């Protein structure tokens, strides 16, 4: 392979690989911006991958799988919102409980529906949709504009979220809820509704991130399909400073490391492959060192708002 082709292939793979990171991290960011900190990403991605795969397999269409994944992600988001925002229970404990429940449910659902088989059932993977005109551009066309729809979705979504958050009245209200819900509430902003909407939509995005894995990579569901991408997306959210645009940029790094690790494995660089496979996690731990320093975390992140609570003190 000549160098130019190598670079194009690498960048193409990065574009494909960044999708689940972007989707899950934007979902995390969205909930976090109103104060709800989910730690159930890994579980939601698993259950969405499983249920989404099953829906696509049995109903015979990827769109069904996508819808099912969004539905199940939204349901888990709704549960998280209910337990934290309405019942005011500890966000980390609820997040962990939901993580275990969803992770358990993902393999349960698969085993009940499919059972143990020698040859796994397959669904078709997502087709590439070259964009008219743009995909004809030299270099850039191949790298950016010949991808499945999820790639475009991840990019567009990030830009839309940026505009929504920083250029609209509703974005201002949303950010206010995550900084000072009492201030927002005292000016008539519906704090509860905001937290519910962002957590449910956030769950849907994590669901999309999960179902992307069988649809883009493997064509089937396995129990280790997510491999920590849910947890990594939390790190990405911090790395991106809880800003949609920086999350998108940071995702290039996360995806780049993942692609690098796999390519190095294939090309046999003399390092045992196990150490290459550690790379994404070690790199993430390393970038969290500056990441946690510069991230300006929403002030109310991880806490629950109770309008009348102050009175007891």
């Amino acid at each position: 392979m000549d160098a130019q082709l190598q670079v194009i292939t690498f960048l193409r793979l990065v574009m494909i690989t960044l999708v689940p990171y972007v989707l899950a991290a934007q979902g995390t960011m969205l909930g976090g911006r109103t104060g709800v900190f989910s730690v159930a990403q890994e579980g939601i991605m698993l259950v969405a991958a499983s249920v989404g795969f099953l829906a696509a397999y049995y109903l015979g269409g990827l769109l069904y799988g996508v819808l099912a994944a969004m539905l199940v992600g939204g349901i888990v988001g709704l549960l998280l919102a209910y337990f934290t925002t309405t019942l005011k229970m500890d966000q980390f404990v609820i997040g962990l409980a939901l993580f275990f429940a969803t992770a358990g449910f993902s393999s349960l659902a698969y085993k009940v529906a499919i059972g143990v088989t020698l040859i796994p059932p397959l669904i078709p993977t997502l087709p590439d949709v070259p964009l008219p005109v743009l995909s004809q551009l030299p270099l850039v066309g191949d790298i950016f504009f010949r991808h499945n729809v999820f790639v475009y979705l991840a990019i567009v979504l990030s830009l839309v979220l940026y505009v929504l958050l920083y250029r609209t009245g509703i974005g201002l209200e949303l950010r206010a809820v995550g900084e000072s819900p009492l201030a927002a509430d005292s000016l008539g902003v519906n704090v509860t509704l905001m937290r519910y909407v962002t957590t449910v939509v956030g769950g849907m995005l994590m669901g999309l991130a999960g179902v992307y894995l069988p649809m883009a990579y493997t064509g089937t569901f396995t129990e280790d399909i997510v491999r920590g991408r849910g947890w990594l997306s939390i790190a990405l959210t911090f790395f991106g400073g809880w800003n949609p645009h920086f999350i998108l940029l940071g995702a290039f790094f996360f995806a780049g490391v993942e692609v690098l690790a796999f390519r190095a494995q294939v090309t046999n660089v003399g390092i045992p492959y196990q150490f290459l496979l550690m790379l994404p996690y070690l790199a993430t731990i390393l970038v969290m060192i500056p990441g946690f320093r510069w991230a300006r975390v929403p002030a109310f992140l991880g806490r629950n708002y109770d309008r009348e609570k102050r009175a007891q003190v």
Partner: protein
Amino acid sequence: MTAPLVEMRHIHKRFGDVVALEDVHFELQAGEIHGLLGGNGAGKTTLMNILYGLYTADRGEIHVRGQRVLIHSPRDALHLGIGMVHQHFLQVAPFTVVENIALGTLPRLGGKKHVRAAADRIQALAQQFGLAVDPHAVVEDLPVGVRQRVEILKALYRGADVLILDEPTTNLTPQEVDALFQSLRAMVAQGLSVIFITHKIREVMAVCDRVTVLREGRNVFTRSRAETREEDLVRGMVGEQLDVQHSFLFSGRPQETEHTAGAPLIQVHDLTVLGDNNVPAVQGCTFTVREGEILGIAGVAGNGQTELAEALMGIRPIAQGEVTINGYRVRVGSTRHLLARDVAYIPEDRLEDGYLPAASVAHNLILGYHRRPPYSRGSFLDWPAVFQAAWRLIKEYNIRTAGPTEIAANLSGGNIQRLMLARAFAHPFRVLIAHNPTRGLDIPSTEFVYRKLLEARARGAAILLISEDLDELLLLCDRIGTLYRGQLMGILDRPAFDKYRIGEMMAGVAATQA
């Protein structure tokens, strides 16, 4: 008189087991400044939070302009023209002034041009009422006085004609208080009506047309100022709870004969401390507190008081200079050694800095003293001894709890405050560093603290009293120093105490220039 602008009838409210308001009435006439007077825990803020829709009353009705109304949220209150300025400003710190003020009024999907329009309106309002602000400044960078203007503008921006101000003079210099009172009169002249929540009788007499007094969640009386004497207000606020004749709070510190200060116990030399943003919050402070002396530190909140207290207690690093307390050279991490050397600390925010909600009452009572006998021997805790002490303190300080094993989170606010007082005063101290020790206390507890401080002084303790309540300092201190932007503007002796002079120092005029 015409029908009242606002009328609240038979208001009941409880939080858990605690009755906050019982059958309370309140009415506001158009064009008046109506004082709502009472000690902490009297229910003033709760009543007004109900009017503003932040709390929901358990029973009772609200009438506005003669109409019965249901107020479920601040949104409803704002629609009725009711705005409220809370004591703790409800602001989004990293947002700009215009973002804070216009929050919730901008079109959902509207963009920058609406923000610009809002900024123009804010400028106009600011000029009309003499409340100068820069709409594009970030709120967390602004001094407290300006943040209060932002808070008032928030209400005016929404067209409020009823303005509720909750303890608005907290953290203002005496000069700023005068200016605020002038603005209030200007607002009333322009057709607004004001509800003025306070626990200071002097303020009622200075600015209010009428006053309603609350005590323990009940009405005491409502009268016009013209026919009210200060003594009536004192008696109304405290009821039979307190012997007013012998109260420091209402009759002042007794004159003592000869006062001889002893050996220096707190020595601070050229102290510089960095704030959270790594900018010096305390700069070049030098002072000494001797045996049998109370040194007060005055200043508007946020001028380095917290950093000063924390550096002295070894909680925050000392960037430069020397601190010696009770013969011990303080460094960051010295806290436990200081506590072991009979240095006591009452932190500013007792709920954040002193209270363990998820642990038991007993755990709370021994925090900081847990390594001392009788509570522990060597590495092991002596729980029977801890429980014994805990039962004693529970009785002595009248803490309502099922016992030492109850989880502290179950306690009511007043009981938590008494728990904190019990811990602070149960263990004898030679040196006390107290930061706003009476904030949030009801009148008897405040009186109790004052008594304890003066007792400790009499037996030779050295006390550094950092307070944002100037009246408290004037009452208790032998000397008062004033902090402004982390610098000590000068220390005045008791004969030289003058409220307005200290006020000037709080605003940055050094003692020599004043």
